[in-house]
């Protein structure tokens, strides 16, 4: 802060009648509102920091929304118990975005103009993020997404949109490709949803597999609202060694069941992104077929034997049992591989606001710059998923990736890929863009 402006040079005070009356009137008006002053006397330090949370409460992302909210509420309870941010309490302002890009943009507008949120946060589905982020840029509202799409690091978005709490699809794929070709087989057929998130997989898998000495023999796109899948399976070439699937949405159970019915006893190796079965009980009818197949996990769903204490503390805070389901309802399975990102992002917002000396919405730009300046994030209570490295230029974090095998209806981690092996060259430098 600069010094207060210097006093007037003239020195002498020469009151006029009109001036005196004005002052009197202003004084009266101020006195009339005095009872309201108390609320603002400490506004700089005590008013809660508001974090606008775009929740997939309805639409195809509903299960994610439910768990994103639970994780965020748990993270804020922890942050508030530890003294809040800059001594101020933090509160979540939740709005349903309907897993719909248009509504998500409106929700951002609401955060900025109606509920006076300091930052916006949340939202998984890539089409929603891609649709809403430009509005965040226009509103100059820091937008912390937990989406795992490659759209942040690809340079498609803007300086106000950051993804510091969850890794992106491109790094996940480059971490998986050597395992696919090395352990499972060289000829890969991929089945992916026909929109942005699926395209990230489509565009990045083939180069990664070829770099690892394999070949993608077929790419099968399925519309995200599809409800029956048998009609797509005949497109799978006979010489396929590995099927790579990343289906998401309400119909994934059907997808797996029909894949099982299609192949019967003679199936190729199968590798999936757990996105297919987030929030789905692996012991559901029809999923027996997945026994012995492999999954990428962003964060292990089942409590692993060697889990450190901070992972257990995180799971307890969110309310997860050892199967990764809600402690109050074992059939309510979590979206474990993604929701940790909410926990970590909220801790990063805290760290960023403290580094920036964040006081009010006028400091939003400072917050973005403070987060851009971050780099290493050590595993611990704030980062239970593992040690990460944030790239301020691309606004994207890099972290460990887990490969798990379905054994006895549970996922056991068979391989952990450290963050160093998931890094790829920068594709954008957001810090060179203007605010």
């Amino acid at each position: 802060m600069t010094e207060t402006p210097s006093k007037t040079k003239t020195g002498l005070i020469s009151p006029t009648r009109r001036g005196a009356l004005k002052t009197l009137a202003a004084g009266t008006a101020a006195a009339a509102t005095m009872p309201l002053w108390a609320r603002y006397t400490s506004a700089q330090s005590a008013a809660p920091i508001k974090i606008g949370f775009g929740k997939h409460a309805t639409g195809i992302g509903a299960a994610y929304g439910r768990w994103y909210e639970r994780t965020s509420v748990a993270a804020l309870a922890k942050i508030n118990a530890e003294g809040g941010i800059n001594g101020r309490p933090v509160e979540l302002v939740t709005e349903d975005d309907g897993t719909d890009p248009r509504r998500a943009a409106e929700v951002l507008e609401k955060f900025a103009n109606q509920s006076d949120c300091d930052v916006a946060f949340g939202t998984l589905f890539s089409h929603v993020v891609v649709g809403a982020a430009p509005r965040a840029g226009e509103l100059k509202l820091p937008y912390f997404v937990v989406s795992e799409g490659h759209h942040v690091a690809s340079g498609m978005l803007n300086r106000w949109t950051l993804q510091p709490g969850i890794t992106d699809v491109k790094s996940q794929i480059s971490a998986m490709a050597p395992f696919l070709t090395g352990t499972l087989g060289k000829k890969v057929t991929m089945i992916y949803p026909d929109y942005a998130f699926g395209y990230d997989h489509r565009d990045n898998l083939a180069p990664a597999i070829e770099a690892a000495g394999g070949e993608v023999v077929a790419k099968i796109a399925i519309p995200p609202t599809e409800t029956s899948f048998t009609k797509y399976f005949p497109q799978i070439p006979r010489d396929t060694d590995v099927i790579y699937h990343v289906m998401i949405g309400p119909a994934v159970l059907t997808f797996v069941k029909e894949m099982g019915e299609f192949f019967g006893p003679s199936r190729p190796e199968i590798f999936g992104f757990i996105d297919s079965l987030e929030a789905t009980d692996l012991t559901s009818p029809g999923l027996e077929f997945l026994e012995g197949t492999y999954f990428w996990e962003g964060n292990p769903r089942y409590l692993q034997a060697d889990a450190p204490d901070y992972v257990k503390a995180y799971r307890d805070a969110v309310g997860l049992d050892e199967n990764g389901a809600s402690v109050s309802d074992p059939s309510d399975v979590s979206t474990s591989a993604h929701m940790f990102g909410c926990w970590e992002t909220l801790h990063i917002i805290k760290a960023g606001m403290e580094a920036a000396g964040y006081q009010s919405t006028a400091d939003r730009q400072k917050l973005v710059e403070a987060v851009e300046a971050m780099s290493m994030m050590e595993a611990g209570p704030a980062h239970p998923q593992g040690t990460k490295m944030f790239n301020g230029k691309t606004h994207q974090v890099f972290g460990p990736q887990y490969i798990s095998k379905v054994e006895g209806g549970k996922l056991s981690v068979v391989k952990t890929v450290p963050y160093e092996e998931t890094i790829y060259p920068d594709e954008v430098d957001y810090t060179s863009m203007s605010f």
Partner: protein
Amino acid sequence: MDFGPYLMLAMLEGAVLAAVLALMASGLSLVFGVMRVVNVAHGEFYMLGAVMAWVVTQFLAGLGGGAAVNFIAAAVLAPLIVGAIAAAADVTILKRLDYDPERVIVATIGLLYVIQQATLMGYGPDAKPVVAPFNQRLALPWFEFGEDGFQMYYPWGLSTTSYKLFVIVAAVVLLFALRLFMTRSRAGLIMRATQLDRDMATAFGIPVEKVYALVFGAGAALAALAGVLIVPIQQAHYLMGGDALLLSFIVVIIGGLGSLAGTVVAAVIIGMSDGIISVFFTPTLAKIIATLAVALVLVFRPQGLFGVKTR
């Protein structure tokens, strides 16, 4: 995959769709035929049938019932519950609009959203599975005249499940029963009488309003039954009514509004072509062609394939 087995798989998939579609569309057609109103909420009754099937099986599973018993109970109870809801909607809403066709369309659009959002609030946004009463994978053989002469083998991926075959058979039986009911039973006679001339039927002492409520309920029950049959294959979800409604409108328009036979034939055409085009090309193309067919039918034969020209 070779062409032969590929085509057979496509046809099996198409037949399942056709079966469910025929049931659902005949409900829509029945309501239009007798009451001369278009029920836009029909897809939601289908969804409600699937959701009710989940509710009933879930409740009975809690009591310790087996999958087959639960499913039979769902197949009986879900259409009854949905039919009762629809009949109540008829008495409380449609009757007060005097079955005026335009206003009924608007009213049923409202009903569509009420049912859909109420389901979202009560049942939730997730897709939930119902266990099929039986579901064995059946690998299907294929024949080939090779160098060694005639031989039979099991191609990769050519298979169906016993439950899918059951759906096809069940739909055929139910449609046949519906036809018998309409042509041979007294209730069917009364419905047809009401359809032909409402005023004359009233003059002969037929309680037309009761008939309307029953028909509207029965149409919804048929949709619900289709929902129950499909749910072990597809899961129950609160948005599943949309596509189903579009397809049944396509079927009913092509077949001729109000004609049961036309509806069944159109369902088979649309279901099979959707299955085959989806498998060989893309599902989007299948929808495009089906909608195009509707446009062509409306232009060149507005009464539908089996419809009777109105005077």
